[in-house]
């Protein structure tokens, strides 16, 4: 028996809008708030049309104050709503850091579950779109280190909608990171209506037995290109899109790593303290005896993302990934 599911071709950012719309239709208590999310539909149009559809009471233009947005969202979440708060760019989440760190992520633990904060924080992030300073930060690792919040990063339209819906349904705070570079880079068939992609599960983009490449978000693209290139040299890459950064899909990662014994990790955040370190550590914990070569990390540098004249240098690309693949293979 097959069930016919209607799909439509959407970009990642359209899939986000579709996910929001789906949940707002289904649940009265889902509301969206942030800077310019209303009439303007968001600076990336992620909330385009939603104000017309759901009204000013549920799609809320807030004052320009991130701590205010998150702090009031916490109150809303504790009192029956499911706020989806937008940070205009991840680089502007810092003024809200205190609210996220000391409240959103801790209220359940502090009160042994008496109060909970089911909220989603959405934020576009990452370099490569020639944005001004600070707009390009990739600081997911600040949040994977923060107890009490999940971190999710889709790399394509299907996952974006499914993960967003799962995030809104999650009983705890979720940081939902949207790679700007993928916003409109391709279209994909996305099912109509409601479906979820499970939080905490990665996906194997390409199977292979020689080397595992772990990545997420906008780095999926250079990784797949490098994998294709490696294929020409007879190197079969297993490419994994982590999709959730906390909690990581430990089993999927360990299985792949134990199969290949060789690992490359790719992310654009700075090297030291980035997710790569956590992944190396996870591999150390799970797969020490399987490792045939040191793990290679291809990452942004320990520098701020430079202004855009140099950002292509900052960003890992196919060449750097390829070079790392060869390095672990030839070790």
């Amino acid at each position, binding site marked *: 028996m097959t069930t016919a599911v209607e799909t439509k071709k959407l970009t990642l950012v359209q899939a986000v809008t579709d996910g929001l719309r789906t949940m707002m239709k289904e649940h009265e208590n889902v509301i969206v708030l942030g800077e310019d999310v209303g009439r303007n539909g968001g600076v990336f149009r992620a909330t385009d049309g939603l104000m017309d559809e759901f009204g000013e009471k549920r799609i809320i233009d807030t004052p320009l104050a991130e701590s205010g947005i998150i*702090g009031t969202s916490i*109150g809303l979440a504790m009192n*029956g709503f499911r706020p989806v708060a937008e940070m205009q760019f991840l680089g502007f989440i810092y003024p809200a850091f205190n609210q996220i760190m000391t*409240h959103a992520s801790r209220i*359940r633990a502090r009160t*042994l579950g008496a109060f909970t904060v089911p909220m989603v924080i959405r934020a576009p992030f990452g370099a490569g779109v020639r944005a001004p300073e600070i707009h390009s930060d990739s600081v997911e690792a600040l949040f994977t280190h923060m107890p009490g919040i999940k971190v999710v990063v889709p790399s394509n339209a299907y996952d974006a909608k499914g993960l967003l819906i799962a995030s809104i349904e999650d009983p705890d705070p979720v940081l939902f990171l949207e790679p700007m570079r993928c916003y409109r880079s391709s279209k994909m068939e996305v099912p109509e209506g409601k479906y979820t992609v499970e939080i905490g599960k990665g996906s194997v983009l390409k199977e292979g037995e020689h080397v595992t490449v772990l990545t997420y978000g906008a780095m999926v693209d250079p990784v797949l290109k490098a994998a294709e290139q490696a294929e020409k040299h007879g190197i079969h890459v297993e490419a994994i899109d982590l999709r959730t950064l906390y909690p990581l899909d430990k089993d999927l990662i360990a299985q792949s790593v134990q199969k290949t014994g060789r690992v490359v990790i790719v992310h654009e955040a700075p090297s030291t303290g980035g997710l790569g370190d956590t992944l190396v550590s996870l591999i150390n914990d799970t797969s020490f005896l399987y490792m045939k070569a040191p793990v290679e990390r291809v990452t942004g540098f320990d520098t701020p993302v430079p202004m855009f004249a140099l950002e292509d240098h900052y960003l890992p690309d196919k060449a750097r990934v390829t070079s790392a693949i060869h390095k672990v293979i030839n070790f």
Partner: protein
Amino acid sequence: MESIKGGVNVESQFPKKQILNEDGKLADDSYKIRLTEELVKSLYTKMLRARLFDRKGVNLQRQGRIGTYVPFEGQEAAQIGSAMAMGEGDWMFPTYRDHGATLTFGHSVKNVLLYWKGRQEGCIPPAGKNIFPPAVPIASQLLHAAGTAWAEKMKGTDRASIVYFGDGATSEGDFHEGLNFASVFNLPVVFFNQNNGFAISVPIEKQMKAKTIAQKALGYDIEGIRLDGNDVFSVYFHTKAAIDKARAGGGPTLIEAVTWRYGAHTTADDPSKYRDQNESLIRRETTDPLIRLEKYMKLENMWDTQWSADLEKELTAEIEAAVKEMENERPPHVNDMFDHVFAENPWTINDQKEAYALMRGE
């Protein structure tokens, strides 16, 4: 020059409103009719209860039976007057110093004590009571109060939030953002400031140049009220008016209750480093909120020595019973630490929990 800007003396717009003066006489007779014996006795009872609790807290800390404690003696009128103005179902966001308020609003004495015993249970209010755990990061709670109030507004109820914070808290960015959000969205929230003159060691003159906190309301086009925070009638009636206004859709109010803490910032603080504690002793003679109400009750023939003695006994017994309960509480289980970070433990926490259990030979 400091106080007159643009030709207007700002602080003169915010007189320190009094209903009951230092001598225990009504400064404003119009409230007389609402001052039923029941209300007056109830205010006194809650203030005395709070004071006895507070002194117990300090003692328990001295005896090493709880950890660092934060006393509020002197601030009873501010806390009790405001808490009494709140209704069932309203939301309360206290700081670490506002147990007088939370106990009056229905928190459990035992749980408040557990808080200072380093127990997570201290963060849990009795069922049905919307009392948030004490906010530790200064001023962060103003936004939560705005948020829960916003939720009530969207639900169409007439419930409101009250949030407590100190004079020092007004310097934080969150104070500003909280007032602005409440103003812009016209939220049913009362911002209840206890200006006790100090943020730990820093006197208010170093915290701000403005002569009042109430005047900060002008920046948000909301109502600001300054009142004698040691006058429980003033606190009660003005907070009630603000809450009623909030319920009716009139938006937020900033209340500055001018008060004084007689004791130390916390039991770990040594106030003699930064102020003359004798001043507190002297102040007390004229400003103690309980003494003032006692004077009034005596003048109004509401005072009865036997009643007062019985009351103190009864309240002491209640508190002692709660202390026992606190001390008899089952010891915390380490899993309380692991099992409430998320609704369901992720593998990380489960692995850590198991490894720790294993190590301990469990």
